[in-house]
């Protein structure tokens, strides 16, 4: 393979590059300032100060207080801590009959980091209601309200969908949750850095974010825990920081996340409209160049960077590979650890028939996407789609039928 091949990264929803400013902020905390943030001595104190500075930065990004931020090993741990921690700590609500099981309300389009914990809760005897979404991937807040029971202890609804970009009406859901005094968790991993976040406006008690989706390092995340919210711990051990999570703090990672949060806050006003304009140009170009293309989730409010396109008569798995071989990185379905592609539960949840779910590809743009990148993508993708279709007998039949 030609090492000098042009590479265009359009998979920012999977992960983002570490911003140079973030890397620079992290570097002193590997070999130089290597202290344990929980140690008494000067080495430790220096790192404690850095961690607390980062906590301030993350709190500021979310409109929260520093004391409400728990650093975790990533978005997945933040979601797990929120869900297991809240359900375990919650008493059975007054008014529910004895022997009744706790109940959780969520949606059918959550990320696996929420979906799998909910499935595990079911195995542990908790009841979970998965509220369906509309064709755009948006859940109706009244349906969430309608699913609430006396035994409901937690509602978990994501802020922005990772595959479609669709925004969920979490603020409205928060009103219902507040009326019924039920805890609300929101997975904001895909919203952070793309939308202005304010935990008070959103109204969630628990909110998860991940550093590597906002140009920070992998392996760090944070959970906002509104003051007074009871959470049982997920992990047990020593060296807990002020947030109660045990384990020696990942100082370079946390410092990186803090810097990434500062950058996200400062660049949001300028960056988001720029990316939205690029994304819209990309979609217009694709619709113009490729017959029958559709945009999944196009009519709902979306994150500015995400474009989930349906290419009828194209096998998404083959398209992603063919594009990778041309230097364009995008994704189909949920990437699994071995790299296989499974049909996305999100695409089937919005009512796409299986063949359409298998023909959908996600392109996600970001801070470093340029006009040139998009021009290259718009040059490369249409002929590749054409080639894939020409090798698909169904497409040939459909094309013949059209001509007849």
């Amino acid at each position, binding site marked *: 393979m030609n090492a000098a091949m042009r590479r265009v990264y359009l998979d920012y929803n999977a992960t983002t590059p570490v911003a140079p400013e973030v890397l620079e902020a992290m570097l002193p905390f590997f070999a130089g300032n290597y202290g344990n943030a929980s140690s008494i001595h000067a080495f430790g104190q220096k790192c404690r100060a850095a961690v607390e500075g980062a906590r301030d930065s993350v709190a500021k990004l979310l409109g929260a207080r520093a004391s409400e931020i728990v650093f975790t090993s990533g978005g997945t741990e933040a979601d797990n801590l929120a869900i297991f921690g809240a359900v375990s700590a919650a008493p059975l609500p007054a008014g529910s009959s004895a022997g009744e099981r706790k109940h959780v309300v969520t949606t059918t389009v959550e990320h696996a980091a929420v979906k799998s914990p909910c499935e595990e809760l079911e195995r542990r005897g908790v009841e979970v209601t998965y509220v369906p979404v509309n064709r755009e991937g948006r859940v109706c807040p009244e349906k969430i309200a309608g699913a609430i029971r006396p035994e409901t202890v937690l509602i978990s609804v994501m802020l922005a969908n990772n595959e479609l970009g669709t925004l969920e009406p979490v603020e409205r859901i928060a009103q219902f949750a507040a009326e019924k005094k039920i805890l609300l968790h929101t997975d904001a991993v895909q919203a952070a850095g793309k939308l202005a976040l304010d935990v008070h406006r959103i109204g969630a008690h628990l909110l998860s974010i991940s550093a590597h989706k906002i140009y920070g390092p992998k392996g760090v995340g944070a959970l906002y825990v509104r003051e007074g919210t009871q959470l049982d711990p997920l992990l047990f051990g020593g060296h807990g920081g002020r947030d109660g999570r045990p384990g020696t703090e990942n100082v370079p990672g946390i410092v990186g996340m803090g810097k990434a949060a500062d950058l996200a806050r400062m660049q949001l006003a300028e960056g988001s409209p720029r990316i939205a304009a690029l994304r819209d140009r990309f979609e217009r170009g694709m619709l113009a160049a490729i017959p029958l293309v559709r945009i999944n989730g196009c009519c709902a409010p979306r994150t500015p960077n995400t474009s989930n396109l349906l290419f009828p008569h194209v096998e998404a*798995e083959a398209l992603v590979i063919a594009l990778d*071989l041309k230097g364009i990185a995008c994704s189909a379905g949920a990437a699994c*650890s071995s790299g296989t592609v499974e049909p996305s539960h999100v695409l089937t949840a919005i009512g796409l028939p299986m063949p359409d779910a298998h023909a959908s590809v996600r392109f996600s743009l970001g801070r470093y996407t340029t006009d040139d990148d998009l021009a290259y993508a718009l040059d490369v993708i249409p002929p590749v789609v054409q080639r894939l279709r020409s*090798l698909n007998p169904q497409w040939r039949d459909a094309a013949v039928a059209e001509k007849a």
Partner: protein
Amino acid sequence: MSRASEIEESKEREPIAVAMSGGVDSSTVAAILCERGESVIGLTMQLWDQRRLPELRPLGTVPQRCCSLDDAYDARRVAQHLGIPHYVLNYEDRFEETVVRPFVDSYLAGSTPVPCAQCNTHVKFDPLIETARKIGAERLATGHYARIRFNETSGRYELLRAVDESKDQSYFLYGLTQEQMSRTIFPLGELDKLSVREIARRAALPVAEKPESQEICFVPSGHYVQFIESYLTERGESLPEEEGEIVTTGGEVLGRHQGLHRFTVGQRRGLGVAVGRPLYVVSLDRGSNRVIVGEDEELRSAACDVRAVNWIPFAFPERPVRATVKIRNRHEAASATIEPLAGGGARVQFDEPQRAVTPGQSAIFFDGDLVLGGGAIV
């Protein structure tokens, strides 16, 4: 310049896809092609979710990670080592539909299937070639031990046994079509097992010392009876007509059996009947749900019918052909006359009666090293 060599010429510049299982053979294929300076793309098929049917796992083994065959990781390590792009393709649905389900159904119907031949026909050489072409590779290389050559006179592709007889896999490849063979290369066909290991070591492949796999890939430790039963249970299906009679060819009832799928023709052990002389399963009668047993000579057949024959060096033989015939992978090919039948089948008349001609197994016809064709024994 002939058409075939023109095709060869134009293909030269195209990348070649390699079906990489993570084993030493297919990894070595990738290494050989890289050494030749070809542009290589590694493809690994995810065929079966190892997390299914956990009760079949040997005690004490850890459940596999999410949709991972460790073999897919091995393939990726090899690809990284060789510096080639590598992709894992999810063929689980197709594999279950075209290989696993027919495998189970075939046993339930009293025959003994050859899943690897089915997999080659329905998974490896059809969708995989199609995917390879979609991503820009017109040819697919695999780690099979067999040879393909183009016959200028007949204008057809021919399949030949591997040079290393002990590794020959032509028994599983007789279903290849002309189109598939025109796009397939078997770089190991001319090599023996030891040279392949040697090349793997020289290329420092991470799998150079990995042991060979012998079993059906989706049936752990070869326990196909448990597999069938677990599979049906997982699917919420019951085992049809579990119990039945074990009778001699003369009609004498000797005992009872626990399901036809537990038996194969030629089987001697595990019949659960003792009559003081060695008895073998002669046939399985689905209709009466009976296992028919008899003595060694009753196991011999002078002839058998084969259905859906794929002929390779010619489209269809005009008259009966002389051939040597393999009726099992490990069978020593026996001389026979093959008479083509209307409807795509053939009748095989052995010169000497053959032992345990088993419905469901493949019968492959050879002329020396040349594979004439083959089909499933009826």
